[in-house]
């Protein structure tokens, strides 16, 4: 069957969504990262049950934990944003409402991730003074 796509369009390979396979790959790579990160998180959170505020802050402020937690935050909010985007694209058909919903989810994920990352940095810096 003859393709109606132009030679340039075919070479670019970006399709009708204009970003090619980027969304698909980003969803899979964040999923792969979240397999060990979420298991690490669950095990550690169970270990923190009933712990006082300072102990939790000290756990979060440890460089290894802070790094892995930051990785989890970035991967999980990126993965969530990509996933919810597909759900919205599937079920919300009005263009205006769809655009508004997509932007709202994107903004929420960016802000929540930023808040969590800034908080991790704040804890990491401040916890040094609590050690003594």
């Amino acid at each position, binding site marked *: 069957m003859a393709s109606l796509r132009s030679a340039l369009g075919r070479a670019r390979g970006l399709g009708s969504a204009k970003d090619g396979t980027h969304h698909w790959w980003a969803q*899979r790579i964040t*999923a*792969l990262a*979240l*397999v060990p990160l*979420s*298991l690490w998180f*669950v095990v550690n959170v*169970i*270990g923190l*049950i*009933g712990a*006082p*505020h300072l102990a*939790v*802050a000290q756990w*979060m402020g440890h460089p290894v934990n802070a790094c892995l*937690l930051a990785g*989890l*935050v970035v991967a*999980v*909010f990126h993965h*969530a944003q990509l*996933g*919810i985007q597909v*759900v919205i694209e599937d*079920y919300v*058909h*009005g*263009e205006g409402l769809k655009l508004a919903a997509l932007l709202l989810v994107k903004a929420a994920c960016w802000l*929540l*991730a930023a*808040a*969590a990352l*800034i*908080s*991790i940095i*704040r*804890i990491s810096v*401040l916890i040094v003074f609590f050690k003594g």
Partner: protein
Amino acid sequence: MAPETSPAAKSKRPLSPHLQIYKPQFTSVLSITHRLTGIALAVGTVLLAVWIVVVATGAPDLYAGFTGFLGGWFGRLLLLGWSVALFYHLLNGIRHLFWDAGYGFELATAQKSAYAVLFGTAFLTVLAWWFGLMMEFR
């Protein structure tokens, strides 16, 4: 579902039939559950950000209030639902990754991996809560 004024309704493009058209099958129910747990986890992840921010505020009262809420019956119900959704989405996500790599498409294999996901979800949830409750009574 689109209103008459929406572009989708105006152009009368054929849409694929909605889920309720089809007779639910074991594997199709697992498939839609993957999406539902994904939505639930996206909402539940707000809790992760709130937890980190609450710890960062350095206000022990606020932290006590937060953990008190999670330790109450409603908080525990949320955490139970969240842990089931997490383990299901995690295990079924691994199943999806194998499909993406081109493995496990045979009907018998897909059925077997579906049972493995359900069994694994129940196992990991019980394991996590068993250790969690042990921590509480230590």
